[in-house]
Each structure stands twice: as C-alpha cells, then as structure tokens.
C-alpha cells in the first residue's frame, strides 16, 4: 500500500452496483419457483370458478377438488399403474441408451455399417410410433416386450444422433496429437471421442427420457391390459369409458409428474457429470 492510499477510507467491500446485482439475484432465485406456483394456483382457481359459476356437471369437467379427491381416493390403484408405466419407461430408456449409444459407436467405428444402416434408423424414427405399434403387438407375443419395443423405437434416435454428432466433434488438434503419440483406435475412442461426446450424449438423453414415457404411454393405449396389469395410460382410457373424468385428470397429473421427474433427474445427472469442465455447467461471475 502506498502512502497516498493511507489517507483514504478503505473502500467498502460491496459497492452499490454489486449490492444491486446481489439483490436482483436473490429476487430471481425466489421468483424461479414462486412465480410458476402462483400461476398454477391462479389456474386452479380459475378452473374451479368456471366449474362452479357455470354449474358444469362433473362428468364433463370435474372441479379441482374432485380431481384431488380422486387422486387421494384412488391412490392405491393409480400408484400401482404408475409403477408399471414407470418401469416400462425406465427399461425402455435404458435400452435406448445402450442401443443408441452402441449404434453410434458402431457407426463411428465403421463407416460402411453407418452408410448401410443410418437411413433405416431415420425411417424408424420418422414413422409415427402410433402407426407401428398395432403391428408390433400382432407379432410380438409378450406385451411387456412389445411395449418396450414401442418405447425404444421413439427414444433411441435422439441418443443415436446426438452421440454420433458428439463422436465426430472431437477437436481436430487433439485428434492430431493422439495420432502423433501413436494412439490406437481403441485409445482414441475411449480417451478422446467418448469424453468429447458426453455433453452431446447427455443432451440426447434428456430428450430420450421424455420420449420413452411417450412411447410407453402410446404402447399401453395400443396394447390394452392382457396379462401385464394396467398402466396409467390404460387407466385414463378406462376412466374415460366410465365417464370418470376426475380420475382421468388424476392419472394425467401423475403422468405429467413422472415426465417432470425424469427430466429433472436427467438434468441433475448431466449437471453432475459436466460441472467440473463443460461450458454449459459453468456459472459466470458477472
């Protein structure tokens, strides 16, 4: 510290601008969860008022309270169904990850295989699963296997395409460096391409998580119950036939919650894996 500095009072550790910024950050942090909750409360209130003021019968539009009643009253049934749908979804996601990433690695290692098979991967992806599902259940004996197949069909492609992109997005200088040091093809894949592809893979995984739930729901709607118990989608359909609209809403809410849960879990996983090094996970100071 020089002599002239001694005459001045020490600078405050937090100046006005910094304080303002910190306050804005705090407000945003609260608003992030408070605002969506307020919107939900408002929507439920409006919904309730519409039902009450217009005296809409519950078999057309049940009030929020009635839906809540169904959610708690039918919890045992709905929970069992949710477990079944959840299990199919997670299994399909697992197969989609293994199959999608595995195919991506295979394609990356062998160009001829990629040229031969990639068009068919695209065809499988662009054909709506609803249209394929009835056929699948004609030829596949087991309902579980059929449902897994449906869910896998929709979920594997984002994993495949984003992992393929990632495996090809290696820094070209690093690739040269590996060549100079005489890396084998296996070393290059394991130490260079797979880590480079990880952020892309995780992006595809987040999409695949939501899609595997969609696939599972569609498969259930097509498959019906026969033998494997009843999932949430079937509960929705069944409640619809019985004009039990409240239970339809309750089951729908659970499906939505499952989707949100899967997305949040995968986002967390992605954050944990990338937070140390990837740009997407870095918090900027200013």
């Amino acid at each position, binding site marked *: 510290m020089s002599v002239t500095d001694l005459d001045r009072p020490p600078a405050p550790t937090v100046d006005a601008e910094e304080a303002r910024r910190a306050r804005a950050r705090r407000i945003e942090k609260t608003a992030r969860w408070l605002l969506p909750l307020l919107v939900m409360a408002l929507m439920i209130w409006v919904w309730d008022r519409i039902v009450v003021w217009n005296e809409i019968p519950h078999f057309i539009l049940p009030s929020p309270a009635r839906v809540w009643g169904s959610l708690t009253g039918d919890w045992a049934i709905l929970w069992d169904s949710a477990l079944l749908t959840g299990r199919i979804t997670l299994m399909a996601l697992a197969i989609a990850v293994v199959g999608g990433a595995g195919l991506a690695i295979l394609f990356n290692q062998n160009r001829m295989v990629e040229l031969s098979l990639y068009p068919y991967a695209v065809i499988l992806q662009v054909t709506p699963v609803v249209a394929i599902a009835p056929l699948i259940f004609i030829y596949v004996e087991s309902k579980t296997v059929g449902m897994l197949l449906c869910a896998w069909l929709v979920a594997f492609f984002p994993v495949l395409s984003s992992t393929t992109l990632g495996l090809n997005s290696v*820094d070209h*200088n*690093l690739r*040269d*460096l*590996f*060549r*100079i*040091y*005489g*890396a084998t093809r296996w*070393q290059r894949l394991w*130490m*260079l391409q797979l*880590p480079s592809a*990880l952020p892309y893979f995780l992006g595809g995984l987040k999409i695949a998580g939501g899609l595997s739930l969609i696939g599972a729901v569609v498969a259930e709607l097509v498959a019906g119950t026969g033998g494997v118990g009843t999932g949430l989608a079937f509960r929705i359909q069944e409640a619809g036939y019985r004009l039990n609209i409240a239970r339809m809403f309750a089951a729908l809410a659970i499906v939505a919650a499952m989707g949100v849960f899967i997305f949040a879990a995968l986002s967390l996983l992605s954050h944990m894996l990338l937070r*140390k*090094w*990837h*740009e997407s996970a*870095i918090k900027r100071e200013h």
Partner: protein
Amino acid sequence: MAQIAPFDARAELMRVNAVDKVFPGDVQALRAMSLTVREGDFISLLGPSGCGKSTALRLIAGLSEPTAGRIEWAKDRAQGDLGVVFQEPTLMPWATVAQNVFLPFRLEGKTCGAVKDDILEALKLVGLDKFQNAYPRELSGGMKMRVSIARAMVTQPKLILMDEPFAALDEITRFKLNNDLLDMQARIGCTVIFVTHSVFESVFLSDRIVVMAARPGRVIEELHVDEPYPRGEMFRTSPEYVAHCRAASQALEHAMEAAA
C-alpha cells in the same frame, strides 16, 4: 542438466529432403523444401500466412505425407521422441492439468504411478506444479499454454514442434513465455522447430531462421543468429538483436515481394 553442443559439433537429427506438397486442386503448398535439423537446434520457420510453414510442420510430425521428396530421420523414431504444441493449448477440458500432462505416457501404456515424478518435474519446469488438480477452464490463456508445453516436454522428446504457440497471447505473456521456453530447452536439451510470423520472436529464440515465401510455399533464405545462449532481457535490448531483426525483416520483405 543436458548441455547443448556447439553448433558445428551437433549430430544430425532429421532432414527434410526436397519435399513437395500439393493439395487437391493443384495448390502447391510446398515446393522443394530442404532443411537439415541438428540436435539442439532452435529453428524458426518465419513467413507470411500461406507460405507452407504449418504444412512443413505437419509433414515433419508425420500427420501428412509429402507428394515428392522425403522426410528422413537419422535414427528410428520412438513414440515419445516428438512433442507438439499447437496454436491453441489443445487440452482435454475434462481432464485435470496433471492428467493432461500424463497423456503422452498414458498412450504409451504407462501407469500414472510410474511416471508421477516426470509429470511433476514437467509441471515444475513450466511453473505450474501447484495447479496439478485444476481443470483447464480455471487457467488463463498463458497458463493453458504452459500446460501444453509441459505435455510436449514430459517425455523428454528429441524434437518439439511448435506451431505459432504464442500468437494468441498478449505481449507481456509472450515475452515471459519466450524467456521460459529458452530456459526449458536448455534444461532438457531438446531440438525445437518453431513456426511464427513474428520477426522479433524468431530472432530472440532461434539460432537459425528459415524465411519462407508463399504461392508456392518455399524457402527463400536461411539466417543464422549467432548469439550466445542463455539469452535474456539484455539480449532483447542489444544492438545485435536489432541488427538481426533488421536482417530478418528484410528477408521477410523479399519473401513478400517474391510472392506478389
């Protein structure tokens, strides 16, 4: 500490023998380039962009094959005999500093425990031994470049190729790294081929400057900077330095005229 032999007594390390490189579309990147590299040399390839200096480096590194002519090594080259530093630090962002420096050994199949001391030694050489466990994104541009240099030097290579390594850094950092680079070269006694477009950098660092011209890329002139090492700030302000810079600038001007 390895001693660098006096210039005339140095053994030949490798030779670029009348090499042509033609890229598709009849682009002549290099024409009849010849260069003899001796152990302990510090050679700069100096020239405008498009003069084929990076192409020459890629050919020497074995990343690409000459269209005509040969790259000849005096002895058989082993995996760790060559180190490379690119213009960007080119670190693996998912790996720590120590893991990045470990890479050349890892690719040779060595375990981390066996070469722990070498890694630490290389990091000490570049002054980053306290940052072993940091990730590249936590480091400044100059520090990342130091890690890159440590990685190139960790195997004690015979030859280090550097492709405009300091071009993206600010001048203060560049001067510091220039000083440190000479220091490191003297300590591990390696040979360096250094691509640059800076006259000042090339004069300060090298004992030979190969001036190149563009379209087609070729060698115009070879200058000798017969000034003793170690060189430091004193050299940078000496009249000899200025004279060499003038000579190199003139040679570079000739190269530009030859291309035009």
